């Protein structure tokens, strides 16, 4: 990887430019059109850099990054599968890129068809009756789903349901989303194997429960065998069941969340459906609901009529959660991926994902501590090294992996497993890739005993080494304008 360490501002020199725009001779002047008290007086940081230097700068920066195409990326809970190039080719078409969202529907029928058909395919796979694509991410989907849950209860004049149940193994976005929509998140305890402790669940049941948020398999990669019991308990007290689709890759095309008793759910297109993570986004978190909840979906919905695809609004809608219709460019990538898989291959995704994860589980359980013996689904969680006598932590193992050209697994999540190390290979990885990874992991476990200092001070071969995060938090420098505050 690259040693390059510049900022674009450091390449700027007065007198350079990167673009040429056409001349505009129309006879209007900014300071005649607008009075001076409305005009900018201060300078900006905008640089003066020639085109080649801009291109080199960002090219060099990219070479300090690790992507899915660089190597194995087994980040648990993130489903870092390959992002097919055919998806990228399709979205580059200007007929998909350059259409204004407020164009009249007659001229956007292709775009609306993509939304509609993706909706139908996802509904088919999950058992839900309709999806909205407005939510921009999983967390945004959770928020939307919880808003639907609240409005459903209010529509039945039921105003005392202010609590939502969340397992203590849940991803942080679950209780955070609850708080954003004014619900109180109540923690339910987990069993040692990470599944929901039904006895503890029962103690929290009441008519104050709006519902439950669950992912299945759970964040430890374990399938909730008693899922039908759990969803029935919630329904019996009048609550709704929300499915966090983050782990859908484990059951895609094998089990439908609706059949498990869920009423509302979100999907992470950037996980299960191969759309790129983009360094942290854009994602897409479409929300699906059962039929009687459709009126609550965000406005507008996209429907098919005899005159073609149209927008439709509902009086019972929760409102808008986005300015327009969601991240279209992400949805169309998922569409292409779904068409590529087709019904021919869609249920093999989960089968191979689960096979791969169990292979890694069995291959590493001598060196890494397995808190749960049962077969896992698409991801496996270890509780750090078996031999912790030299004080090498999960963090150290992760940093040492960087030296071998691997992206580390997810670390320290879920919170209920100490020294958690979560590995999700996805279905796209070959036996050879996994065997190489396994042998490096074994090597690191060996080094932890024979040469712990090497592991504790890793990484050694990356563009930068361990970073002083305490300094970054105590004396935050968050922009170039303040960088001289350093030293």
């Amino acid at each position, binding site marked *: 990887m690259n040693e390059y360490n510049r900022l674009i501002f450091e390449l700027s020199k007065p007198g350079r430019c990167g673009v040429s725009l056409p001349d505009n001779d129309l006879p209007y002047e900014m300071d005649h059109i607008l009075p001076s008290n409305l005009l900018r007086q201060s300078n900006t940081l905008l640089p003066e850099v020639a085109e080649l230097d801009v291109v080199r700068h960002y090219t060099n920066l990219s070479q300090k990054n690790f992507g899915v195409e660089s190597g194995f990326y087994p980040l648990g809970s993130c489903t870092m599968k390959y992002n097919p190039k055919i998806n990228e080719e399709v979205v580059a078409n200007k007929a998909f890129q350059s259409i204004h969202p407020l164009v009249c529907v007659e001229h956007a029928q292709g775009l609306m068809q993509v939304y509609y058909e993706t909706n139908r395919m996802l509904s088919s796979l999950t058992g839900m009756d309709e999806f909205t694509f407005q939510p921009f991410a999983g967390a945004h989907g959770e928020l939307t789903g919880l808003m639907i849950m609240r409005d459903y209860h209010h529509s039945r004049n039921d105003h005392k349901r202010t609590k939502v149940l969340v397992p203590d193994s849940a991803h942080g976005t679950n209780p955070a989303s609850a708080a954003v929509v004014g619900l109180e998140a109540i923690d339910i305890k987990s069993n040692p194997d990470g599944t929901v402790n039904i006895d503890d669940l029962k103690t929290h049941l009441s008519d104050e429960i709006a519902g439950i948020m669950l992912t299945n398999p759970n964040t430890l990669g374990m399938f909730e065998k008693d899922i039908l019991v759990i969803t029935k308990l919630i329904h019996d007290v009048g609550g709704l069941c929300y499915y966090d689709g983050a782990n859908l890759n484990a059951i895609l095309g094998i089990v439908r969340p609706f059949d498990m008793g869920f009423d509302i759910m979100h999907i992470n297109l950037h996980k299960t459906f191969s759309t790129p993570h983009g360094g942290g986004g854009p994602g897409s978190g479409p929300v699906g609901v059962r039929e009687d909840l459709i009126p609550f979906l965000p406005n507008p919905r996209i429907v098919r009529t005899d005159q073609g695809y149209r927008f439709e609004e509902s009086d019972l809608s929760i409102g808008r959660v986005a300015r327009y219709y969601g991240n279209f460019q992400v949805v169309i990538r998922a569409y292409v991926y779904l068409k590529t898989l087709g019904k021919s291959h869609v249920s093999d995704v989960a089968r191979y994902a689960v096979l791969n994860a169990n292979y890694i589980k069995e291959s590493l359980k001598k060196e890494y501590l397995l808190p749960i013996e049962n077969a896992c689904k698409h991801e496996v969680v270890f509780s750090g090294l078996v031999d912790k006598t030299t004080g090498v932590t999960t963090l150290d193992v992760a940093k040492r992996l960087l030296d071998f050209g691997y992206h580390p697994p997810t670390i*320290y999540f879920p919170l209920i497993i100490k020294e958690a190390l979560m590995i999700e290979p996805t279905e796209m990885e070959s036996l050879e890739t996994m065997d190489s990874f396994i042998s490096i992991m074994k090597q690191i476990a060996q080094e932890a005993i024979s040469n712990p200092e090497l592991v504790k001070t890793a990484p050694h071969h990356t563009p930068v080494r361990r970073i002083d*995060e*305490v300094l970054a*938090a*105590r004396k935050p420098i968050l922009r170039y304008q303040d960088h001289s505050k350093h030293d």
Partner: protein
Amino acid sequence: MHKVLENLRYSKSHEWANLKDGTISVGISDYASHHIGDVVFVDLPEVGRHFNQGEVFGAVESVKAAADLYSPVSGTVMAVNEVLLDTPEALNEDAYANWIMVLKPDNLTELDILLSPKAYQDHCAKEQE
């Protein structure tokens, strides 16, 4: 080994309270400051705000964690230790010398609910198991 001072009272959530001239100064114990790791930020309450016993009045943040601070007694905030704004790491250096806030207490009998130094030692020992 963590320090426990003799003249203080302690809450189960690791805050200490020191009665002096009718006011109560509040801080976090040595045990807590070790547990949280390098302190990077202390979220101080506003002077003049009132808190009930057990109510969250602020937070201590490290790089990877944030711990809520619970008021050991009911009272009104008279002063906050602004030194902690610039040097939050002071809490790691000496948790007892660096108070966080001073309260005008509502009811001094609330101190009786807090733990004695020995009871607090035992409480910490149990937590570590």
